């Protein structure tokens, strides 16, 4: 493939991903209660967002839960992928099977079955139950991504390390993790995305005092999505991009 063709293709994919978001951004400046037609420019939705403390706190809750759940799921998923690839032990096929089952279960099924479990264990619904539920949702995605990466490994590297006297922890920490890093990072990103967007599982596994953003947005549809939600999305995207640019410039300075 020629260089130019490559960049054109990548550019098209990025355009496909970002164009709808540009629409969201434009309509956050729309001077109308409803995001339906253009009525002129205004900044009042940003002002309204600033005063809407419950929406802001739901957004922060969502970020907190997504960060924690993605980390927990990445930990569990990577370990699961590692042992399934590396070790032979009884019940290994069962692990495969349950990952498969979890991945294809519709979210309502995961939601209801986990809720029944939490109720049976008399756990109060709130942050901890929500965290566990989101991690349960994400683990199969991490495990599949990381496992497929292990397939590309040459086993002799691991054997060589062992011959040189490394114990299994060292092999895991210093060889497996660095080699699998692209997949581990990818798994974390997928989990973060899944958690940030989940509605049904959140609905059933959270309590009255911990509300997350998708729940608020979904229940808003009946009365129309308010432009301050568009504004919120723009602000969140803005923060992500600024953080990205900052971290890159900081890293460059370090170099």
């Amino acid at each position, binding site marked *: 493939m020629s260089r130019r063709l490559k960049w054109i293709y990548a550019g098209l994919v990025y355009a496909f991903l970002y164009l709808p978001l540009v629409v969201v951004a434009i309509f956050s400046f729309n001077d109308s209660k409803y995001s339906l037609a253009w009525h002129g420019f205004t900044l009042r939705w940003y002002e309204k967002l600033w005063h809407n403390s419950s929406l802001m706190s739901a957004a922060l809750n969502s970020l907190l839960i997504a960060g924690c759940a993605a980390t927990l799921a990445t930990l569990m998923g990577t370990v699961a992928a590692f042992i399934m690839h590396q070790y032979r032990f009884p019940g290994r096929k069962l692990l495969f099977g349950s990952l498969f089952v979890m991945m294809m279960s519709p979210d309502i099924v995961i939601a209801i079955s986990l809720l029944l479990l939490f109720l049976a264990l008399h756990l109060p619904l709130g942050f901890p139950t929500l965290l566990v539920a989101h991690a349960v949702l994400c683990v199969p995605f991490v495990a599949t991504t990381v496992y497929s990466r292990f397939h590309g490994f040459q086993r002799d590297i691991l054997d060589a390390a062992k011959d040189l006297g490394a114990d299994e922890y060292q092999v895991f920490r210093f060889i497996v993790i660095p080699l699998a890093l692209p997949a581990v990072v990818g798994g974390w990103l*997928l989990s973060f995305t899944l958690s940030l967007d989940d509605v049904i599982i959140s609905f059933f596994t959270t309590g009255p005092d911990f509300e997350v953003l998708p729940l608020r947005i979904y229940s808003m549809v009946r009365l129309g999505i308010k432009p301050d939600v568009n504004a919120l999305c723009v602000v969140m995207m803005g923060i992500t991009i600024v953080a990205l640019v900052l971290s890159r410039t900081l890293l460059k300075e370090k170099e």
Partner: protein
Amino acid sequence: MKNSSRFRQLLIGSTYTWMVVLALIPYLILFIASFLLPGDDQLVQSGLSFSNYQHLISPAVFSMARSSILLAGVAALLCLLVGYPFAYILAQSSAKVQPLMLLLVMIPFWTNSLIRTYALVMMLKANGVINQVLMALGLIEMPLQLMYTQTAVFIGLVYTLLPFMILPLYAALKAVDPRLVEAGRDLGANWLNTFFRITVPLTTPGIIAGCMLVFLPALGMFYVADVLGGARSMLLGNYIRDQFLIYRNIPMGAAASVTMTVAMGLMLLLYFFASKRLNREAMQ
């Protein structure tokens, strides 16, 4: 050595605990529930019965299953076609920009999917962005009918599921030893040949992983198809959700979900056995 086996036990033990407590037990509860009947006051009635499963053998359920599998399959295929070249370009670009490019793929997905789906509606509808641009350019005179078509549904599905294809493919492509590709080139193969005979086979695990990550969740997904397709037909996801919520029939929803899982599991097993056998024959 003692340290080693303890580390191994810790890993296996924690994974087991996680899977048994949070995946197997809840699913087992549902599995048992699928043999019960819904109660009027209680969630379920006692007494075993296969009637939930018998209800599933109906032309309506078969037609839902057919459209769901078709939809998820085409979505996976489209994601692969769009995602593979992209992941390839990503893996080939200089190591410095790769993390940035990867993050740029993910950032759109941190905006709520409902907002993004409605943003797609704004683009596709009769007086939407695409039609207005095309009409302003004079390319069309009447607005194209894009909304509530199969095309709209597939655009929406690819838009929602693309990163689930790109990330495993990228991870797999990064694992391909560039020396193998170079060796192919040195032996006189052109780009197309090395790509299809070296790169693609080496990334098969990534392709399978990506297709699973797109296909399996898409089977139970209905939101995108409902909003962009007009909800004139029913998918398995609708059916299972409705059983749980609208008809308050947890046993029936559980039975439908179990059946879907078992059927898909059998299909995948069959596929893996068949491909293994084909591989072995090809080797001989």
